[in-house]
Each structure stands twice: as structure tokens, then as C-alpha cells.
């Protein structure tokens, strides 16, 4: 468009006002609550939407400019990575298991977040909020795309990457993340903001992306490091917006406080359960480890989380209900989860393995109170079974938690030798949980969670009816290639052969 503009350049503030607030409009032939019908039913009271402040004052035009620049840089590096056999710079192909889990479970979450923000951008009345949500919707779809593109190079050489979308929908270990997003997307717009803006962006981003991206750097994965950098400034903006949104709700009406507190309790625990996967990646799957899950929790959970809740205390917000139980689980969860992944590895589209002596020495140094006492004996026994030619496979499958959908691998908060059994009966049906936290979430909204699609019970229903081979086809898992122990896998053979070619004269 050609337009003569003789006015001098606009200041940031004025520009923001014109490019956001001025885009607002009032309804004329329909009442406002018919155009925006979902903003009231959760019980959150907003008196003045103009009090919503975008701390970045980002307008769409500058947003496009920044993002386009990031895209150009990103794809230049990804192309170079592919052309220079970047996959052979990895420390070890075991690292790829962490990447496969990320692609199958977390990247689809970015896409879900995109859909959710596109929706709440339509449902919220405030213009500032609408614009911020639209930008985040675009960020999130970009994150999904850049992650998929970055990892697609590995798909040319290694197993387990080829069917991430089917696995997101149908396989069992991804359902903790899938159900997290399904739960958020089927909630109202304000709860969605707590679920994603607070729990995912604030609690999880630090504990998920920071260690994951450092893990990528430590293990020679330039592709992942690149998408991490490309998303970093977006994430910083999302975290700030998430927090801004919480404060906005709390400041608008004191009656909002108990509702927000309930969501913080719920979404902290849901987020914490997603971290079960992350703890395992950190402690077991990175050939060169960055820090232990415990160390990451101390920094990002205890210190940063503690500071956040101190900040929110002036609104009457207290730390989430499950906080103490979470702390009690930190030194156990990665071990409990990895033992599960190993014994059910016939059903995973990634490899797991028995930790080596060196791995176990590291684990016992990082977990002096728990690893040698509880987990080393189990791994030693599993190693004996493998050496005897009878590797441990648990075809008993697993009881899943009705809320978080993880196998109920966790123990009592105060007794690590006893599995935590929790159950309830609702309208004549039995439901099981991994923890008090998950049972509380169910008890608050049973009608929602009875609809949970649990992958393991599903295996015995139509269309699979308990046939493991059929199930593998249905989840696009190629038996003998995608699954099982890393030792002896195609991934291991290929990586070693190709790296040998690249680094020797053989």
C-alpha cells in the first residue's frame, strides 16, 4: 500500500496504543456477552480490561519483523546441520531417546498451545489481551514447526522419529503431556491461562527447556540448540505474560483469589507429573549429563518457584497444595520412571537401557540417599537377568492414573518402599490414581476425568482387543527397530558404523 506519511515517527507507547487498543470495537446489533459468551462462566470477575498491560508493548508489525529474522537464522543453521552430517557430532545415539520423547510428547503440546491461544484470543474481551494471545498462538505454531523441522534430519538416519503424531495420539507414555493439554484446552479461557501461561510456561519452561537445551548443547545436538535459541525470546515473553495474567486476575477482584488458587494447585501438580518424563531424560538419557534432576529442581523449582510464590503472597496466594509431596518425590521419580520405561520398552518408540557402572556411580553421587538404597539393587538384578539371556520384560502392562495418565509408578510420599495406591468410586465406577494430588484433581471435577482416554485399558478394547502386535501397528511402532534395549539396536549399529566412517580411515 502506498501512503504518504508526513508525521514524525511514533513513540513506542503511542504506537502500542494505536496498534492494539485502537483495534478494539464495541458491539452494535448484538449484546457484548453474546459475542463473548465464555468469559464469565468460570466465575472470574474482571471490572476493567484496560488494566491489562502488555509489558512488552509489542505490536504486530514489529512482531513480524523480529520473527522473520529469527526464522531466517534458524533455517540457515538447520540446513548447514543437515548438509554437514550434524547427526554424527552427537556424543552418542542414546541421546536420541530424549529427543524422540520430546518430539512425540512435547512438540505436539506446542501445537496444542497454539490452538488454545488462538481460541482464548477470540474469547477474551480486552484488546491488549487479544493481541498478546494472538502473538502467542503464532509463536506456538512456530515452535511446533521449528522443532519438527529441526528433528526431521534425524529421521533420515534413525528409528523412532517417523510417526510422532500417531504416537502423540495413541501410545502410552505421551498421554501425560497430551492429557495435560487436552485438559487445558477443554477448560475456560481463564483456567487455560493458568494452565499454559502459568504451569506450562512458568513452572515447566525453566525445568523443561533450560535443562533440555543445555542437554542438547552438551551432547552435540546443534539442531536442537538452534530451535532452543530461536524460541528463547518468545518463551521469555510468554513467561512474563503468564505472570501478568495471573496478577491481573488477582488484582481485579478479591473473589478471584480462591478460584485462581485452586487452579494453581491443580496445574502445579499436572505440570509436575509431566516433569516425570523430563527427570528421566536428565538423569538417564543424556550420555553427557548437564545436572541432575534434583539439582535442576533446587534451582528452578525451589529457588525460582519460591521467589514467585513469595511475590504472589501479597495477593493471598499460597504455594501449591502438592508442593511438599513434590519435594518428597524428587529423589525418586526419575529412577521409578526409568525402571518402568525399561521394563515396558517393547512398547516404546525409543530405546532405553540398563545404566552402566559409570552411570550408576554418577546416580549414586547425585542421589546419595536414595539410589544405592533403593534403585541400584533393582538395576543390578535386571542386569543379571539380561546376562542370563532372560532380559526383564513386564508384560503385565500397568495400572494408569485416571488424572495424569502415567503408570502408577510412584511410591507413598513418606515410604519409598510402598507403591502409592489411591482409588475412588464415582457413579458405580472405580478410578485409580498415582497420588493424592491426582486424586484431588479428579474429586474436584469427576465428570471431566471419567472421560479420560487411558492408553493401556484401551489396548484391551476395540479395535485392538488385547493383541500386542496389532497394537504396535496401530501406534505405528516398528517392532525390533523403534523399541527395546539400545544395546544391539539398529540406532546403535548405524551410529557407530557411520561415526567410524567419519572419524577413521577404515
Amino acid at each position, binding site marked *: 500500500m502506498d501512503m504518504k506519511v508526513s508525521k514524525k515517527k511514533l513513540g513506542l507507547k503511542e504506537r502500542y496504543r494505536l496498534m492494539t487498543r485502537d483495534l478494539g470495537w464495541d458491539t452494535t446489533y448484538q449484546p457484548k456477552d453474546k459475542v463473548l459468551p*465464555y468469559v464469565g*462462566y*468460570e*466465575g472470574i470477575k474482571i471490572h476493567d480490561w484496560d488494566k491489562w498491560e502488555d509489558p512488552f508493548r509489542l505490536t504486530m508489525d514489529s512482531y513480524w519483523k523480529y520473527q522473520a529474522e529469527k526464522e531466517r537464522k534458524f533455517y540457515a543453521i538447520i540446513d548447514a546441520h543437515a548438509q554437514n552430517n550434524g547427526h554424527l557430532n552427537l556424543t552418542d545415539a542414546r541421546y536420541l531417546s530424549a529427543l524422540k520423547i520430546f518430539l512425540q510428547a512435547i512438540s505436539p503440546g506446542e501445537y496444542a498451545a497454539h490452538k488454545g491461544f488462538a481460541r482464548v484470543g477470540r474469547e477474551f474481551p480486552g484488546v491488549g489481551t487479544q493481541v498478546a494471545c494472538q502473538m502467542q498462538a503464532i509463536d506456538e505454531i512456530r515452535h511446533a514447526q521449528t522443532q519438527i523441522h529441526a528433528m526431521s534430519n534425524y529421521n533420515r538416519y534413525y528409528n523412532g522419529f517417523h510417526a510422532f503424531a500417531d504416537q502423540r495420539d495413541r501410545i502410552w507414555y505421551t498421554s501425560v503431556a497430551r492429557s495435560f493439554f487436552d485438559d487445558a484446552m477443554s477448560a475456560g479461557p481463564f*483456567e487455560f491461562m493458568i494452565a499454559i501461561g502459568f504451569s506450562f510456561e512458568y513452572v515447566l519452561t525453566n525445568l523443561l527447556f533450560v535443562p533440555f537445551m543445555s542437554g542438547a548443547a552438551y551432547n552435540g545436538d546443534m539442531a536442537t540448540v538452534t530451535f532452543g535459541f530461536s524460541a528463547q525470546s518468545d518463551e521469555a515473553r510468554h513467561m512474563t505474560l503468564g505472570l501478568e495474567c495471573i496478577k491481573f486476575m488477582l488484582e481485579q477482584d478479591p473473589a478471584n483469589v480462591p478460584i485462581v488458587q485452586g487452579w494453581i494447585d491443580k496445574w502445579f501438580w499436572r505440570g509436575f507429573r509431566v516433569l516425570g518424563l523430563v527427570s528421566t531424560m536428565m538423569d538417564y538419557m543424556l550420555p553427557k549429563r548437564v545436572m541432575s534432576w534434583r539439582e535442576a529442581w533446587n534451582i528452578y523449582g525451589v529457588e525460582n518457584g519460591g521467589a514467585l510464590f513469595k511475590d504472589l503472597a501479597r495477593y493471598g496466594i499460597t504455594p501449591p497444595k502438592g508442593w511438599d509431596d513434590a519435594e518428597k518425590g524428587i529423589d525418586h521419580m526419575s529412577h*521409578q520412571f526409568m*525402571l*518402568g520405561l525399561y*521394563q*515396558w520398552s517393547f512398547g516404546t518408540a525409543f530405546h532405553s537401557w540398563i545404566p552402566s557402572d559409570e552411570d550408576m556411580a554418577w546416580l549414586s553421587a547425585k542421589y546419595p540417599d536414595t539410589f544405592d*538404597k*533403593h534403585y*541400584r*539393587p*533393582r538395576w*543390578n*538384578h*535386571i542386569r543379571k*537377568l539380561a546376562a542370563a539371556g*532372560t532380559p*526383564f520384560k*513386564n*508384560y*503385565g*502392562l*500397568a*495400572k*494408569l492414573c485416571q488424572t495424569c495418565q502415567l*503408570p*502408577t*509408578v510412584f511410591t507413598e510420599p513418606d515410604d519409598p*518402599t*510402598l*507403591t502409592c*495406591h489411591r*482409588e475412588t468410586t464415582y*457413579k458405580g*465406577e*472405580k*478410578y*485409580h490414581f498415582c497420588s493424592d494430588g491426582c486424586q484431588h484433581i479428579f474429586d*474436584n*471435577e*469427576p*465428570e*471431566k*476425568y*471419567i*472421560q*479420560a*482416554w*487411558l492408553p*493401556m*485399558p*484401551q489396548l*484391551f*478394547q*476395540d479395535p485392538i*482387543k*488385547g493383541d500386542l502386535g496389532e497394537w504396535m501397528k496401530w501406534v505405528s511402532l516398528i517392532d525390533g527397530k523403534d523399541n527395546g534395549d539400545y544395546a544391539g539396536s539398529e540406532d546403535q549399529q548405524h551410529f557407530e558404523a557411520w561415526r567410524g566412517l567419519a572419524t577413521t580411515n577404515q
Partner: protein
Amino acid sequence: MPVAATREYVGVPRDVAANFHGKQLVYVSWDRHLLFAAPFLLCVPPEMKFRELLDGPLAMLSQPDPDAAAIDWTQVEWLKSNQPWTPDFGRSLADNGIGHKDQLRFRTQGANTLLTAA
């Protein structure tokens, strides 16, 4: 608490017994034997005798535990829905009152090799 919703909200449970083609789910776990990462999920007919459950799937699945061979099923303590409970080995699951998605736990008195190994 009801789900916050704009109109009446009614959910449909996904795992009702009718979906399992005449079988039912039973969860079984061996207390404090944590080589098994989670309670076993079994899909079995309600007409199955309790003894068949023990001698069949349960004996097979427990086998990797070093103490499995020493289980004396006559001495085992049982919990159903976390309450003490006594099964009748000769009767069916249904006659034992084991419903769809019931959780059974058992406790053995003997050695727990992997618990005391450290």
C-alpha cells in the same frame, strides 16, 4: 464439585466393563516388591477361578522377582481396595466379589531380596 460449564455437563466413562468383550480389568500388585514398576493390569474373564489367576498370569508375571519361587500362596495376605480381604481360591473372580477395575494387593512374609540388598 461440578465442572464449570455454560450448560449441563455430563461425562461418559471410557473404560466401562461393557467395552471389554466379556472380560474385565483386574489390577494386582505385590507390596514392597518394586522390581515391577506399577501394579499389573490384567484383562481376564470374571468366570476365571481365583486359583487360575494365581497359577496363570500372576505366577508368570511375578517370576522375574528373585523371591517369586518362594511364594506360598496359602500364607499370603490380601488386600482388596486397600482393605484386608480373604479370597476363596476355588471360586471365580466374580464369586469372590472382584469387580471390574478392582485393585488386589498381596503381601508375603518371606525374604525381600531386592529391598534388603543394599
